[in-house]
């Protein structure tokens, strides 16, 4: 009986510990929710319906580092936002684009940027920590659940489980989020100054040592293709002009993909469903090593040049 009585203390300890943990959790989450820079911030801004530019860009790292949003804004005299998220597949981006399509009333044009690997199948969720502040959103939860049900469920419903998934970067960002919150409480939730663009200042890099330089087949994933087709249809039904764009990559990259022509025709088919189709894979840019950091990514220098080419075309079609 004595044992049972002493359990009271253990219970009290567990309750106090719980209160403590939930407070820490709240502090970290609050900060993370108020981040407005980097990929985490982008997702926050979109789910807080703070982004509604004339021209919106979605894509993966090729787009995040390749579309110089401030420069495009200057050249097109239209508002631009780069909503691309590094390393992320369209299946995972779908919830973001979906949400955007639902709320953005001002927006006129959406660019869906396709890097050479955009149609490839991808396993699992990439960097779930970027989605944690908005995981309560049904749209986000369902699309994450679709990719990794177990992970999505645990992150949403089991207290503190998400902290076993995050990197220390999450805590640093949360701290930055608090700073942003304290500084700009009155203006609400400001956009970041780079408009989602991440300039990459590096010159051409040798490929990482362990990267293979052998050409490989990159099969088209039917499911991903379907997701993109659905997104194009949905965006168009909301009265937005959809531009499917094959992003520029250095010509050395073509040599690494055996079935590039096949992929390209798949992208072309998607382009046919959209309002416009632009293919920069053969642009004059792609011969210059100065414009790239590696085979598949523009550097800051290259994206400035790319912006001027793109702006000209955008000005023509968005008259």
């Amino acid at each position, binding site marked *: 009986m*004595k*044992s*049972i009585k*002493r*359990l009271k203390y*253990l219970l009290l*300890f567990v309750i*106090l*510990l719980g209160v*403590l*943990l939930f407070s*820490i959790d709240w502090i*970290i989450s609050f900060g993370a929710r108020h981040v407005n820079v980097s990929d985490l911030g982008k997702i926050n801004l979109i789910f807080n319906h703070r982004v509604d530019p004339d021209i919106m860009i979605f894509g993966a790292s090729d787009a995040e580092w390749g579309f110089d949003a401030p420069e495009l804004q200057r050249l097109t005299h239209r508002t631009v936002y780069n909503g691309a998220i590094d390393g992320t597949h369209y299946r995972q981006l779908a919830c973001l684009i979906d949400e955007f399509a639902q709320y953005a009333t001002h927006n006129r044009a959406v660019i869906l940027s396709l890097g050479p690997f955009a149609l490839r199948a991808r396993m699992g969720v990439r960097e779930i920590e970027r989605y944690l502040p908005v995981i309560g959103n049904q749209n986000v939860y369902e699309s994450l659940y679709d990719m990794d049900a177990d992970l999505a469920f*645990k992150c949403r419903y*089991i207290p*503190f*489980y998400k*902290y*076993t*998934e995050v990197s*220390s970067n999450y*805590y640093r960002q949360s701290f930055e989020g608090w700073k942003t919150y304290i500084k700009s409480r009155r203006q609400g939730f400001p956009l970041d100054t780079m408009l989602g663009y991440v300039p990459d200042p*590096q010159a051409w*890099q040798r490929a*990482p*040592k362990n990267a293979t330089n052998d050409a490989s087949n990159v099969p088209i994933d039917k499911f991903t293709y379907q997701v993109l087709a659905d997104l194009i249809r949905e965006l168009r039904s909301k009265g937005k002009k959809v531009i499917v764009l094959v992003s520029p990559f250095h010509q050395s990259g073509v040599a690494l993909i055996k079935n590039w022509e096949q992929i390209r025709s798949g992208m072309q088919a998607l382009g046919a469903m959209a309002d416009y189709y632009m293919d920069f894979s053969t642009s004059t840019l792609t011969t210059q090593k100065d414009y790239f950091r590696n085979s598949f990514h523009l550097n800051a220098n290259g994206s400035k040049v790319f912006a001027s080419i793109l702006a000209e075309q955008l000005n023509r079609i968005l008259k």
Partner: protein
Amino acid sequence: MLFNSFGFLVFFIVVTCLYFLLPNRARWSLLLLASCFFYMFFKWEYIFILLFTIAVDYYAGIKIESAEGVERKRKWLILSLIANIGVLAFFKYYNFLNGNISGLYSLLGYKNPIPYLHIILPIGLSFHTFQAMSYTIEVFRGHQNAERHFGIYALYVMFYPQLAAGPIERPQHMLPQFHERKQFDYDNLIIGLRLMLWGIFKKVVIADRVAMAVDTVYGDVHEYSGGCLLLAAILYAFQIYCDFSGYSDIALGSARVMGFNLMRNFDHPLYSKSVTEFWRKWHISLSTWLYDYLYLPIVIAKRDWNKFAVAFGLMVTFFISGLWHGAAWTFVFWGVLHGLAVTYEFLSKKPRNRLAKVLPNWLYSATCRILTLAFLVITWIFFRTGSMSQSFYIIKTAFNPLAKGYFHLMYRELNDDLTIMGFARWKFFAVMLGVVGFAVADWLIYKKRQFILFQVSQGLRWAGYALLVICIIFMGVFHSNQFIYFQF
């Protein structure tokens, strides 16, 4: 199911609660069922291997006990040992032996006709076969009665807290515990939970974080400077200690909550003053097993050789110990080095004792500790790399401080960040601080012979527990691989 996974947390809570809710006569079936579930979580088909050895040893145990005369008893013992060692040899050493045969063949210019097999090592195989052999040997020696209850014998082999990586228990210690009636006990609960907490902390906060630095360096040995290699080798000592002793603490703790006492597996081995002492404090359940069933019989049989008997026994034992850890020559070499060190210490006892009397006590113990730790760090290089040439390269480079660029620690990554062993600088220093902090805490526990938090007031103690929980949740690494000792 890994001890540091969310799944195990749920499993542990459910099993422990059910254990105390069920009447005593049903408890063994619960534990057996839970252990089967735990085992089959890795690869369910392998349960049949376990079933096979359990059945053989159960039957052999009874036969050994009832057989008339030592010779008959011995026959049954040998049958049991062949079954156990056979299973172990097939699953663990088949490809190793075959690889060596291929080497011999190719030396002679032929191709080895025996096929290579893709075998996944069953979880905990080296541990539970040793534990099962301990049972039949003890029955043979007459130190243990044969167990008649099949379920309880099965539970002895596959009790889930110790199934995956020990401690390798003894029948005299475990079997009575399965028969006795356990009462819920608050002290057991607290002691058990505390052990688990400390074990998880060691694993996810220290070992796995340190592993990131170690893996970075060992992943690309030729890229890093001698200083980095030396640091990585030292950090690996802490990694493997925190990893394995952390595992053992969780094992002991999760059994203790239900009232089971498992044997202590670690006694602060990194502070040993000799390699001999290290082996009394590191993986105690294995070293006592080898001592009782291998070393002692050898030395007794060869006792007329006097000192050579001991040296011979030590070398054989450490050779086997190396082989037990892994089917590779690097492990054997590691074992042989330890055998040589312990033999040397045995033979040089007198002169060393004379030296100890001359030197001031603190100086002598400090020197011994540093030399022992250095020996451990160097031998663990073979343990970690799995390649002889790479190990020698590391030793050569790490202990050549006069080489150009030896103290070069910082590296520029592709994205222009400066890193030390794969960590951003501030993070690296935080990790080092963590390791040093852990070493100090571990030293204090060692000196005071109890958990340091016992020394302070109750409020502070509970605050300490809370701090450990917070560190685990917010600073732990949960995406690493298994525990190091799972592969053995």
